[in-house]
């Protein structure tokens, strides 16, 4: 039989795909294993955590570990709700503000003309290679210089400018037809109105992607609590969960650590599942030309 070509993105399930799934499945198992494991571990009662030989799956799930997690935070003086509150405030602000920054800047870079535009785009493209851990020391010095240590600002401001997010949003706005924008200007709209009434509604997938990327960064971020904030009252949930996990190296502590990790991981996963269609839609225009 002659080679037919084009088996990309098939519409229906065919026999040939079973082979591919058979190849991918073991790898997928390996990828999923630790996550399944952490879910099982979080619900294991004490005797199963100590079981020898250790069992992978949980047989009689309980919420003991979550209860212990709550108790541990009560005895430490600062209730877990405080950390959660900090995390939620910081996360909401970062997600909203970074969406605004990325879309507004993306709009200007894509559709408005001004001096220095191409240089700015070049700099941002270079910044895609930015590795934040490399400059943690000068960043710390900057934050110290601005007197932002021990404030919410230290959690929020360093994360707001996200070159990758701006890059993706800008690529997406490039696809909005100029004619549409021209027509709006003809009708007397100004730049802000075009941004708000035309660009934003048309780039919803990119906004969703930008939101999830910001969320992924800020929600699990422990660096700012580690380095810039020493006041326990201002630290975040991810940081607290992490200290719990590190402090309890015993087998009993592992159950608590797993529960803590699950609490951090789940919102991330759920948000991604909800928004994944938008993410794929945005990624289609993610190429660097």
């Amino acid at each position, binding site marked *: 039989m002659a*080679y037919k*070509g*084009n088996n*990309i*993105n098939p519409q229906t*399930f065919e026999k040939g795909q079973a082979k*591919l*799934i058979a190849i*991918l499945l073991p790898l997928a198992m390996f*990828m999923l294993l*630790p*996550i399944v*494991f*952490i879910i099982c571990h979080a619900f294991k009662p004490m005797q199963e955590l*100590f079981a*020898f030989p250790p069992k992978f799956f949980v047989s009689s799930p309980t919420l003991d570990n979550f209860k212990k997690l709550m108790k541990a935070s009560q005895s430490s003086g600062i209730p877990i709700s405080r950390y959660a509150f900090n995390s939620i405030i910081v996360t909401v602000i970062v997600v909203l503000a970074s969406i605004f*920054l990325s879309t507004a800047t993306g709009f200007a870079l894509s559709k*408005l*003309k*001004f001096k220095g535009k191409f240089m*700015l785009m070049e700099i941002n493209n270079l*910044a*895609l*290679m*930015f*590795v934040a851990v*490399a*400059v*943690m*020391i*000068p*960043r710390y010095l900057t934050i110290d210089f601005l007197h932002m240590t021990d404030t919410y600002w230290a959690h929020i*401001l360093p994360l*707001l400018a996200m070159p990758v997010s701006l890059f993706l949003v800008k690529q997406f706005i490039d696809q909005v037809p*100029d004619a549409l924008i*021209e027509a709006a*200007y003809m009708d007397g709209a100004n*730049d802000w109105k075009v941004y708000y009434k035309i660009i934003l509604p048309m780039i919803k997938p990119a906004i969703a992607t930008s939101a999830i*990327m910001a969320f*992924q960064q800020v*929600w*699990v*971020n422990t660096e700012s609590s580690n380095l810039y904030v020493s006041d326990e009252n201002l630290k975040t949930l*991810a940081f607290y969960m*992490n200290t719990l*996990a590190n402090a309890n*190296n015993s087998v009993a502590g*592992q159950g608590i650590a*797993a529960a803590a*990790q699950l609490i951090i*991981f789940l919102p991330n*996963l759920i948000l*991604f*599942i909800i928004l*994944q269609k938008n993410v*794929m839609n945005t*990624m*289609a225009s*993610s*190429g660097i030309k």
Partner: protein
Amino acid sequence: MAKKKTSIAKRESANKTAYAFIAPYAILFLTFILIPMAMAIILSFTNFNAIQFPKFVGFLNYINLITQDEIFMQYVLPNTVAYAIIVGPGGYCLSFLIAWVLAQLSSVPRTILALIFYSPSLCGATGVAILWKIIFSGDQTGYLNSWLIELGIINEPIIWLTNASYLLPIVIIVALWSSMGIGFLSMLAGILNADESVYEAAAIDGVTNRFQEMIYVTIPTMKPQMLFGAIMAITGAFQNGTIGVQLTGANPTPGYAAQLIVNHIEDYGFIRYEMGYAAAVSVVLLAIVYIFSNIFKKLFMEKD
């Protein structure tokens, strides 16, 4: 035909609002990305202990890094090179191959599998460490130990995370495990978005199998996504460089076995407070990322 100036072009010089749109981003970008990078370069030429004013020392830090820092030369650099080569290009090829196979599935199994492959990226670097710490736990109750004993491969539990000879491979495996990030999604979308007619034309022109199709059709049509994926793979690999310290809970890692350049920066900057020296190491790291990214740019940049 003389083209009428469009209204976007007409407002070219008058557009002051454009600056208002970019100003907030530009200010934050400058403050938290550009200035810290510039500061790293400046500090790298000084002796700075975070208390006294930095003292200019010229290239001394760099000279020391190359000639005096035995740990850097003996452990950190070889570790980083091994790690970067396996996790960077390795993770990248793996991402591409998995994306390529996934693209040949129909929508529902593809979405489910893609989610599974992406899920480790959702854990965050510290989450990844906590997950694997329990699996690699050193006593008999550690899962890996228990399995290996059951299978008869080992007789006694191995203390994985403090054993210098296992630590780097473990860090590499864990980093590979979490390497299907944004680049992976981008490449998957790139393959899916390809024009069907190109594939049909290629089949007529004599492409006879899937492998040929991948080399001659798929990769050339999605070069822009390949480049984006490559840059994300490189930065991701270095950004995840803290896994070793998080797994072992100690910086430096036992016997410097998994000491990567990022850990070395942290060690000098926040533990020994030799910030000038740490800044010099940072500059070296940024240079490495830049060089790697440019190699990929040469490979995938479309020539006009």
